[in-house]
């Protein structure tokens, strides 16, 4: 039986070990995915994911139970990733193991595999703000309101960033010839 987030949090605050396990199992995949996309490094993503959950449980008492839990956790993850990126920028660049960590769907055709790799690379090269919004929307399926809450920005900003992220990716795929430019039709003004 699935326990709702508010009840789960209450149990966690009482120190129930099972509840802690359920909450981690419920959200660790989202947090890890977010961390991998933002940090672009497997080991860093694992470390930050663990750190995120430590912070989540330390500040669980401050969570507003009238609001959804997931954006709150994702917001903490985004903040931790930004802090980590700030710290990492002062260190020598770490090797990027991202290609080894991602589990691609069953792809056989070279073209599809190439497209998958290219779109992955395009997402990684997005500006951090755009990438965050893009990943939250397209990978984690969060709505505009939740994303706005998680990154503490207005919904309009979220929509704008998401649109720009999509356009950047699309343009890049077009440049690489991975999507058809022939679909362009001349407009009346062209």
């Amino acid at each position, binding site marked *: 039986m699935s326990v709702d987030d508010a009840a789960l949090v209450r149990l966690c605050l009482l*120190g129930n*070990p099972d509840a*802690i*396990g359920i909450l*981690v*199992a419920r959200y*660790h*995949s989202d947090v*890890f*995915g977010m961390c*991998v*996309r933002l940090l672009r490094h*497997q080991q860093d*993503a*694992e470390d930050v*994911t*663990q750190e995120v*959950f*430590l912070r989540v*449980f*330390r500040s669980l008492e401050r969570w507003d139970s009238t609001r959804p839990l997931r954006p709150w956790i994702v917001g903490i993850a985004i903040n931790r990733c930004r802090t980590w990126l700030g710290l990492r920028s002062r260190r020598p660049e770490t090797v990027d193991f991202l290609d080894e*960590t*991602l*589990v*691609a*769907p069953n*792809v056989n055709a070279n073209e*599809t595999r190439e*497209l*998958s790799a290219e*779109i*992955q690379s395009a*997402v990684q090269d997005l500006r951090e703000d755009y990438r965050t919004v893009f990943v939250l929307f*397209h*990978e984690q399926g969060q709505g*505009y309101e939740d994303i706005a809450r998680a990154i503490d920005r207005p919904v309009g900003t979220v*929509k704008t960033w998401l*649109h720009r992220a*999509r356009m950047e*990716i*699309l343009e890049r*795929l077009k440049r690489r010839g*991975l*999507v*058809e430019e022939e*679909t*362009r*039709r*001349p*407009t*009346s003004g062209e």
Partner: protein
Amino acid sequence: MTCRVCDELIVAYMDGESPDALDAHALICPESARHRADTDQLLAALSLLPRPEPPVGLAQRIVHAVRKDFRQRNQARQLRWMAPLVLTTVAGLFFTFGIVFLTPDITRPATPEPIAIQEGVNQARDEVASLTIRTAQETARLFPHVEVSNLVPPQMPEQGSPLQPFREAGEIVSSGLQPLTDPACRAMSLFFRDLPVDAR
């Protein structure tokens, strides 16, 4: 995009809404038709975007770390709560012991003097008394015409008492002071001799 309608419809389409409105608009807006096709390609490409999967065992590691942190924070919280209690108890104990042992207790009877000191005081008192009586007797002997009464005979301690050394020391001091006391005695005797008989 220059067409605002197209802009909104594309966003709605990518958000999961039905493309009917976009398709209808695309019939009269070539730009929208082009963007519709682009969007379809982008959505198809995004479906190939592999989702990062957490490594096996990560959840267990996180749970372990969280439980450990939970225990440590509980211990720290208990320590924070207990430390003032322990300090207060220790301070209370020190205060109590200080009151009992360091403050002079006026209700307690005075500790009796040690016997040796008491005896010493008594003997010194007897010595002073005997010296006074002896001086008085000598004075009376010097001035026989002065009536001296109520002289208590000296009660000298028996020989071989522990005060013998003190007594000898006193005699030595007396003999040392004799050059001073003898002229004084002579002066007193001359004074009494010259006094008129009536005044004696």
